[in-house]
């Protein structure tokens, strides 16, 4: 780890200004991933701008009936928030399925979105990795890749995004608000993370110096039920092999509205729109659910050793949708 300067800005504007002056600056939230990566030598900022004390730590109602989540709201506080538990249980469940109590107490909403892949090659600076050092190659493709991507990967990168929270946000059509040197903008969370393509070094569409200030949830669809289901290698404190976030509205035995996202399968939380197209208006049956999963997973291109993820995602999807339907029942 190289020495770095440390600053605590008083406002978002100041934070953004500080960052604009130093191309080697990074924003520090809870630090649960950034400090980890600095110790690994993957990140080596010259300046840390500690945004964890900025007044972005509130969860408030929006005029439209949604929720506005400050970027520094800690994962444990967000998961416990009354409105989240009542109206967006999928988000609460996703947060609680991730990491540990200690990590959730520290990790922030903005930081969780921006956490980086746990691909073992990315984390080891002694090995090639196109994401970490562009142009060096991707040894994961032919190497040890059981935990890596089956959807949307490229020749250059097969990394997965590790967040559980982001998968729920993707299914909830959240919007991410950004402040940068060129002003403010909002990006749908489903468009925040990129696919790797031939530029895997960039995880997101964030422009240099942009800071996530808040995440806004639209009102939960009336009559909807939601849940998050994750499969992992040990009972707790493990990343997803595959996960699904599902929001479903069933009326008179038919799917009225469905929103579905996968975790652990791709370089970004994978919003399953092809599956949703199959679901919408169709009878809420196991047969429909399987067809929907297949429609989405037809695009999967598993690597030598991770084909099981396709099966797992399919089963999780059918299971989650059945459970939500039974609840609506």
């Amino acid at each position, binding site marked *: *780890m190289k*020495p*770095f*300067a*440390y600053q*605590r800005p008083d406002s978002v504007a100041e934070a953004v200004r500080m960052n604009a002056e130093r191309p080697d600056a990074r924003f*520090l939230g*809870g*630090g*649960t991933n950034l*400090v*980890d990566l*600095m*110790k*690994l030598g993957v990140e080596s900022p010259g300046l*840390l701008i*500690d945004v*964890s004390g900025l007044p972005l730590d509130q969860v408030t109602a929006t005029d439209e009936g949604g929720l506005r989540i400050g970027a520094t709201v800690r994962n*444990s506080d967000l*998961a*416990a928030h*009354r409105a989240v*538990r*009542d109206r967006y*249980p999928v988000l*609460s*469940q996703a947060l*609680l*399925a991730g*990491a*540990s*109590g*200690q*990590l959730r*107490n*520290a990790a922030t909403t903005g930081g969780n979105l921006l956490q980086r892949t746990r691909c073992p090659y990315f984390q080891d600076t002694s090995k090639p990795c196109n994401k970490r050092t562009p142009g060096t190659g991707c040894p994961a493709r032919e190497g040890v890749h059981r935990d890596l991507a089956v959807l949307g990967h490229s020749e250059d990168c097969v990394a997965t995004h590790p967040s559980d929270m982001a998968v729920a946000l993707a299914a909830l059509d959240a919007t991410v608000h950004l402040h940068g040197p060129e002003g403010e903008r909002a990006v749908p969370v489903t468009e925040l993370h990129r696919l790797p393509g031939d530029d895997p070094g960039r995880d997101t569409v964030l422009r240099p110096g942009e800071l996530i200030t808040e995440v806004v949830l639209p009102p939960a669809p009336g009559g909807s039920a939601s849940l998050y289901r994750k499969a992992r290698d040990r*009972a*707790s*404190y493990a990343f997803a092999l595959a996960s699904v976030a599902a929001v479903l509205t069933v009326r008179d035995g038919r799917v009225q509205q469905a929103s579905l996202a996968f975790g652990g399968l791709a370089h970004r939380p994978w919003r399953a729109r092809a599956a949703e197209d199959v679901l919408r208006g169709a009878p809420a049956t196991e047969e429909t659910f399987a067809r929907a999963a297949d429609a989405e997973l037809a695009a999967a291109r598993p690597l030598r050793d991770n084909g099981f993820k396709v099966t797992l995602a399919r089963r999780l999807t059918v299971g989650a949708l059945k459970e939500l339907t039974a609840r609506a029942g």
Partner: protein
Amino acid sequence: MDTTPAKDERDAGRLTPADDRSTFTLHINGTAQTLTLDHRTTVLDALREHLGLTGAKKGCDHGQCGACTVLVDGRRANSCLLLAVAQQGSRITTVEGLAEGDRLHPLQEAFLERDALQCGYCTPGQICSAVGMIAESADGFPSHATPQEALADDGPVALGPDEIRERMSGNLCRCGAYPRIVEAIEDVAP
């Protein structure tokens, strides 16, 4: 206390190059400690290498084992991932700060009584984590193990074995003392 004042004095008396270190105060177990530290120094290393408080353990240094768990403003955290410079003003409690004089904290007593430890290396982290965890549950924070129906309730979450196991899963124990740890916590939890 086995502190190392020499190093701190040396640092304090030196011209700091550019801006890679700061002088600041940490509040540890009720005592204000003013230190000049490299910005890279984590709370864990500040405790262990600068303050002689070696109760918090370094098992992995990456937030993957929980041996370094301390309480920050009453909430448990992995001190290996907290930069000390970012914790100015926080109140930090380590395992050394739990007992009152010779009187052990009830969780320390329970761990002894239940033999909820073997090598002891994860133990301080387990105990600090349990203190924080019991408070979180009392404050109504849910966990992955909290039943759906209880999520609607704002009150304290009852700490049965399943809740304790899930909530304590951020603290690895390679000796496999988990069953005893759960029993010890059950003895103390409301």
